[in-house]
């Protein structure tokens, strides 16, 4: 009475047995896994915006040596609680631009701001820093929106332009290095 594989397969294929995979251990495993995973799952994705603050130091600071083609670029953005924005551009201690962006209704006009910033970016493509100077009374979520609007192009769409040196450039960034300029004032 040896086990005959051929007969066994034939029996199985004829459907004479009601043999089934036992799924209950697998089900038990899943019932255990799901609560564990539910506890560890985060449904809101946390992100961060990096910025630097001026730090007081005892060490004597030497003025940085300026390279030949380097300019003293200073782009500031003021925001007040009346939803008004003022963008000021100072290059090598000369005020080149000062634009007031009136509110769009009662809200800040972020589209106009991005247009103005893009015009500056076109002229100074190597510069990345913007000093943000919100006034008292400006809510934090508006500050975050101002940072967003200053860092990237509208809807992160790449913008093409010809730089002052004649190069064809494409970028999704405006001024990604946003710092708070009025903390110690």
């Amino acid at each position: 009475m040896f086990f005959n594989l051929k007969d066994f397969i034939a029996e199985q294929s004829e459907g004479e047995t009601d043999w089934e995979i036992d799924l209950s251990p697998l089900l038990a495993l899943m019932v255990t896994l799901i609560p564990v995973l539910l506890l560890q799952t985060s449904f809101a994705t946390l992100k961060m915006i990096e910025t630097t603050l001026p730090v007081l130091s005892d060490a004597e600071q030497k003025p940085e040596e300026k390279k030949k083609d380097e300019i003293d670029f200073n782009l500031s953005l003021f925001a007040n609680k009346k939803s008004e924005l003022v963008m000021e551009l100072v290059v090598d201690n000369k005020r080149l631009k000062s634009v007031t962006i009136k509110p769009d209704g009662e809200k800040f006009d972020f589209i106009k701001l991005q247009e103005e910033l893009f015009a500056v970016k076109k002229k100074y493509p190597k510069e990345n820093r913007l000093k943000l100077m919100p006034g008292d009374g400006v809510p934090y979520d508006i500050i975050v929106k101002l940072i967003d609007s200053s860092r990237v192009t509208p809807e992160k769409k790449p913008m093409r332009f010809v730089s002052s040196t004649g190069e064809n450039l494409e970028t999704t960034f405006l001024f990604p290095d946003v710092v708070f300029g009025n903390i110690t004032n």
Partner: protein
Amino acid sequence: MSIVHDIVKKAQKDSGFTLQLTAMVDMFTIMIVFLLKSYDTSTLEVKNVDGLVLPSSITAAAPEEAMLMLVSKKGVFLNDKRLASIVDNKIEAKSLAKEDEDFIEPLFKELNIEAEKIEAIAKRNSTVKFKGTIFMQADKGLDYSVLRKVMYTATMAGYGDLRLAALDGEK
């Protein structure tokens, strides 16, 4: 694990019919895949604090481990310790220094203690270095005057690397 197994087996034995588990296993498989996709091992989490709703940002990057500071509508917290109270979008006067109204004294002291702790570890372990990094979770409705005072105090305590927490606005 054996409890579910036993219940299923008993039910099958008692009633004489086989419970069809295939559909349920299918459903659980989909759930597990979804949960694994959202699985997060980071210790940084959105704190469930009364009066704290984070703003959303489209340009924010993935967060890195840093000291957590919470600024809700009700107070300033460091390591779950309330250091100053906020009432009507203003920091209570008793927490502010008399000679400098932007300076939050209890926060400065606590930040200094934390910095000293890290520096003490750094003396024994060369891989540890005080970087002055703060991960700030602040309520989106807070006035800039409150945040400016918090940032000013952090600056005075030598914390120059500020990371602002935001929710992913692209999702």
